[in-house]
């Protein structure tokens, strides 16, 4: 074993990465799945009620990764409510190059929460020979009343299904508090929401501080979010210029929903 192999073995095994992340020593944003044929999914936000709907553009992901190998894609959809309980779990088979719309109002579920989309296809072993895993970072549309679909792509790689079909998190956490400042201002609306879900393997504490143009804190909110829960921090303050999110998650990028007079804007921070 040469020096580089020893370094790789010592500093990049899962225990070393855990310690590196814990103490902020060259941390990594996500862990490697421990199953070679794993598919990683974002933990996507959904909301469906009388005035609001969500749709997911489900596509045969094998056709995007291995387009020269047409094959079916077997998809497992797992939808949680805001309290982390599974509301619905179903499977869909997509033919090569097929894309389908999954409209939440047609699934007869109401409320809000988050969901996973895991893919499985037979020739997935072509990926493991390159050290890669499938990643579902797809496109979600949100719609209010008779508005158009407001699209947003996935926010971050969150979890994978292991060989026994158990959901495993790849999200990194630290012992130290991390600070995340979305590079966006909030002074064009007084009503906005910061949406955060928890795809980690333990309860997380989130603290959001809102600053005015003088960089003084004008409002601060915090909450504990349990595993697979989704929490919406709602703000109603015209003086907020920017925000900082504090947590132990190394890459705590939120969903941001800004309300305007006739519609809303939604994007990842």
């Amino acid at each position, binding site marked *: 074993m040469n020096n580089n192999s020893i370094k790789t073995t010592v500093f990049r095994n899962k225990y070393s990465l855990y310690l590196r992340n814990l103490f902020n020593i060259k941390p990594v944003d996500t862990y490697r799945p421990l199953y070679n044929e794993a598919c990683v999914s974002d933990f996507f936000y959904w909301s469906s009620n009388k005035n609001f709907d969500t749709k997911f553009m489900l596509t045969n992901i094998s056709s995007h*990764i291995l387009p020269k190998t047409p094959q079916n894609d077997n998809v497992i959809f797992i939808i949680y409510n805001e309290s982390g309980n599974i509301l619905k779990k179903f499977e869909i088979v997509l033919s090569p190059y097929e894309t389908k719309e999954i409209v939440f109002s047609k699934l007869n579920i109401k409320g809000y929460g988050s969901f996973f989309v895991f893919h499985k296809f037979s020739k997935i072993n072509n990926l493991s020979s390159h*050290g890669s895993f499938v990643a579902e970072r797809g496109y979600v549309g949100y719609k209010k009343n008779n508005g158009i679909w407001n699209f947003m792509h996935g926010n971050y790689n969150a979890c994978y299904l292991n060989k026994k079909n158990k959901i495993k998190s790849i999200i990194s956490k630290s012992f130290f508090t991390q600070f995340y400042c979305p*590079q966006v201002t909030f002074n064009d609306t007084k009503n906005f929401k910061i949406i955060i879900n928890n795809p980690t393997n333990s309860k997380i504490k989130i603290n959001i501080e809102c600053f005015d143009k003088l960089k003084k804190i004008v409002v601060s909110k915090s909450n504990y979010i349990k595993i697979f829960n989704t929490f919406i921090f709602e703000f109603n303050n015209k003086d907020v210029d920017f925000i900082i999110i504090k947590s132990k998650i190394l890459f705590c990028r939120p969903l941001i929903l800004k309300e305007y007079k006739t519609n809303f804007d939604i994007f990842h921070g």
Partner: protein
Amino acid sequence: MNYFFFLDHPDNELRSSIDLFNKPPSKTWSKEKLYNVNVHVFYSDGIKWKFHYFKTIKKNDYLTINKDELPIDFQNKSVFISLNKDKITDSSKLINENYMNSIPAWRANIKLKSKSTACSYQGEIPSSLTEKNLSLVSCSPMVQLEKNINTYFYLVNLNSNPGKIKFKINVLNKNKEIIYTDNFYTNTINILNLKNIITNLNEKMYIFTSKDKGGVPIYFSKNDTNTSLSLEHTHPPTEYTIHGNRIFFQKEKKNFWLD
């Protein structure tokens, strides 16, 4: 470093703006020593860059710019933005500083707004893209062409060479049939209304390609009254995988659609 840009739209009601931050989103992976930056807006006249110093952003500060605040000769141009330590005096080249190294990427909020609503996304053009000979494969499920809705395809191209070079783009369906071809230009915020180009709404995915050049592919939708807007880019092909040799799969995808 990263460059930024204003999105333009032929509808005069829509205004373009951008939020610029002189600090990274997270200090965990960004050890940048911050300094005050000079905001330059610039465009290509086809031969040289035309720079204009706009304002200075102090370190840890931020600034919102509306495109209509720029000088009059910038109003009908494809305008890009760079943040520089010194004021730019040489109009022959882009100044690529070793700044804004960050995970996640150092971005800006790029926005289009009407009288009653707005839409945005967190975007940037990495300077590395301005040096490379790129191609484009953008698979979009975000086309909305129902009654009273229009979807526009933007391809934002910025190249270190200030010339305006024509290149061909194709729109394909999932069967690899070319349904439309057009010419775009380098150093331009190219825009294409898809209304009369894509007519089969049963197909949920369309593929936008170019063998010659690339850029940032963005999809913007609006209703006729501008009361509802949507804006998002598509992932580069590498984002369909995580870890390992992701470039291999990007090449597989590009070879398939550009063949």
